[in-house]
């Protein structure tokens, strides 16, 4: 191989190694975030019965409302996948479109969640009411905080794709973002089940 070809092959190999390294590191971070949520779930599991004479989940949660939220988030996870497929094809418009839909659905989820929080707080069932409500708001709220960060990140990435196209760094970051967004829906599976379904059971 000529010197230039050798050099290019080296650079490509190094870049691929770098990408593999970064994506693995981000995966490791996601695993740690799972432990974060696990601690919050453990706390919720222990405290969910401590209503301090107040109402429990069965009385407070509206299951149809939660189902709509869940479908919004689940669909956004799906459309995020579609955005990634488009990005792999370097299809700028499609990527932006699917990211936009993902963002909209994520925003719907967040607004619905905040609305529910607001309603609970106004009724006197805020996070100060009992151990149950403290753990509920913190678990679900932490998920909501992650969603918020995801929305901000998504907006920043989408604009970078639109303005600068598909650089290697942007593709890598899109991969990381989609990992993050899918992970948030996976956590929601458990919130949906343990907080809302089991709460109503």
């Amino acid at each position: 191989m000529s010197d230039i070809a050798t050099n290019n092959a080296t650079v490509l190999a190094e870049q691929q190694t770098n990408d593999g390294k970064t994506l693995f590191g981000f995966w490791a971070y996601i695993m740690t975030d799972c432990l974060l949520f696990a601690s919050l779930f453990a706390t919720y599991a222990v405290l969910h019965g401590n209503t301090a004479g107040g109402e429990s989940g069965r009385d407070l949660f509206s299951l149809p409302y939660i189902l709509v939220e869940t479908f919004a988030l689940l669909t956004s996870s799906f459309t995020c996948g579609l955005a990634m497929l488009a990005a792999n094809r370097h299809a700028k418009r499609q990527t932006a479109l699917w990211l936009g839909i993902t963002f909209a659905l994520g925003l719907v989820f967040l607004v619905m969640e905040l609305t529910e929080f607001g309603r609970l707080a106004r009724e006197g069932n805020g996070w100060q009411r009992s151990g149950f409500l403290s753990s509920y708001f913190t678990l679900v709220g932490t998920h909501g905080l992650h969603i918020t960060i995801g929305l901000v990140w998504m907006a920043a990435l989408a604009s970078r794709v639109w303005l600068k196209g598909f650089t290697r760094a942007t593709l890598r970051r899109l991969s990381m973002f989609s990992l993050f967004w899918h992970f948030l829906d996976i956590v929601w599976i458990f919130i949906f089940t343990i907080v809302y379904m089991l709460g109503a059971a």
Partner: protein
Amino acid sequence: MLGLFAGFLGRLTLDQLPHNPVTAGAAASMVLIVIAGIIAMTYFKKWRWLWDEWLTTTNHKRIGVMYIIVALVMLLRGLADALMMRAQQATAASPSHGLMSPEMFQQVFSAHGTIMIFFVGMGLMFGIINLVLPQGLGARDVAFPFLNATSFWLFTAGMLLINMSLVIGEFSAAGWLAYPPLSELKYSPGVGVDYWIWSLQIAGIGSLLSGINFMTTILKMRAPGMSMMKIPMFAWNVFGSMVLVAFAFPILTVTLTLLYLDRAFGMHFFTAGGGGNAMMYVNLIWAWGHPEVYILVLPAFGVFSEIVPTFSRKRLFGYTSMVYATWGIVFLSFIVWLHHFFTMGAGADVNAFFGIMTMAIAIPTGVKIFNWLFTMYQGQIRFTSPMVWFLGFVFLFTIGGVTGVLMAVPAIDYQVHNSLFLVAHFHNMIISGVVFGFFAGLTYWFPKIFGFRLNERIGKYAAYCWIGGFALAFFPLYILGLMGATRRLDHYDASLGWQPLFIVAGIGAMIIALGVGLQILQLIVSIFQRNNNRDLTGDPWNARTLEWATSSPPPEYNFATIPLVTERDAFWVAKQKGTKTIPSHDYHPIQVAKNTSSGIFIGVASFIAAFGFVWHIWWLVLLALAGALATIFYQTLREDEAGERTIPAAEIAATEAAFRKQKEAA
């Protein structure tokens, strides 16, 4: 006077400056030292150098040195706290009340524990991992150099915050783990517990990021041919420790947050009323806390696994069983945590399960000890100062470990829980394990990092002081514990007859202090004698692993060419065969991560945000968090452009040629 700004500055007011003379004196000396440092830097015009070479560095070797400097400074503070506690207990046989008030004593023991675990233990450990790990793997740096720098600055921000509590406000008086209800707002209304929460929170995030960083480094950045079963045993131990960091630290993050939410926002996680459950705090904090002690000790085991073979001139006995033992420890350390609260009232079945698991974890640990001893057996032992540390460790750590197995029996633990027996046990493990391991590693790798050897004789004397001093300081505590002495006592009845033992313990502490003094002397003398003790070959100990193949100190890029590895102890094998570990031709330009100020800015922003959280200055929190976010965003933009700088092949060739000439002349 600040009434106009009352809301503006949260609960911060002028009368939060220290009142009592001891605290005020300590705070003032700290501030004066910092000011003196600033004046010296300005006078010698070293700011540019400090900024370019150290504060903005992303190089793992420099970051490692900085970690160690911060940790050693905090060791002095922690030791001062320890001496104060010994002095208090040696003189406080009633009717005397010793030298300090109970309130002061409570803050001293809380600060002592917090500083030693989080800032000395974690700092020394991350320091030594930074210094040694990449080179041992044949790598040029860690996986994420910028993240590495950020981790260091988060650690330092946490350190600054805990020192800030000395200057303005107060520190926690709730022990190093701040159990509720004592740590809740009702019983600790001041800022002390909040300082504790936030300095740990920031340092904890730094640790978590390092965990991810080092895990990725070990898995993804090994030299070609270096399969996992060929990596240095130090790297295996670090890998195990970092897995524990990754999975345990999030629990700490959550628990600290929940406590803060209770205190600042009136939530009811651990409060005595409103549906809180204080026992859940104990459960969660120890679910983190137990893995934490293994996080600290596993790298120390790794250090010994490097030192013993070198100074026995024999390869490590039972490499495979060591790997299994390490993973046994990692897994088991996650299922023993209840042994820290046997007496909280769980039933026999729960206590028995955790008791048995606790005993089980002694088995892989025993495997390690035996393997080190078998390594020494029929080896050619060299009695250097790292070996002195090791021998002190083997003897003392085994004793401490046995007392641990004793306490693993819940019925026995009911007798000695929270007594001085327990205090003696965990100091036994941490000092002879983590601290001795670190000192051994520092002495061993010092020539590699700084290019000259430490004075061996003074080093050995220091080790003897630490070993003898430890025994004198803590064996009486075992006896006192069995006699019924509770921990954290600021005074006791003279008729108990405990005072002589406390006095012996005080003498032991002073001998340890003498040891520390000798270590400082060792450093000074060694610096003065450095020209006579230069390490010209890069391999002063005739060692076995890859880091010794480079010059001392190594070039910025570590390896001019990444070595191709075919077996364990690759460097040793190459030396025996007479081949070169690092080929000396075909140099290509090398990319290294550029310096960046983002790390230190994120550290500063975190410090400010934490300060705001402590004093409830919410606008400051938002501003600082926004600043941190902006810095991260800016850094990612920068990385797109040119996050790396290239070292030209010619420069590499020249550096390597110079090293070869130096080696031949030696």
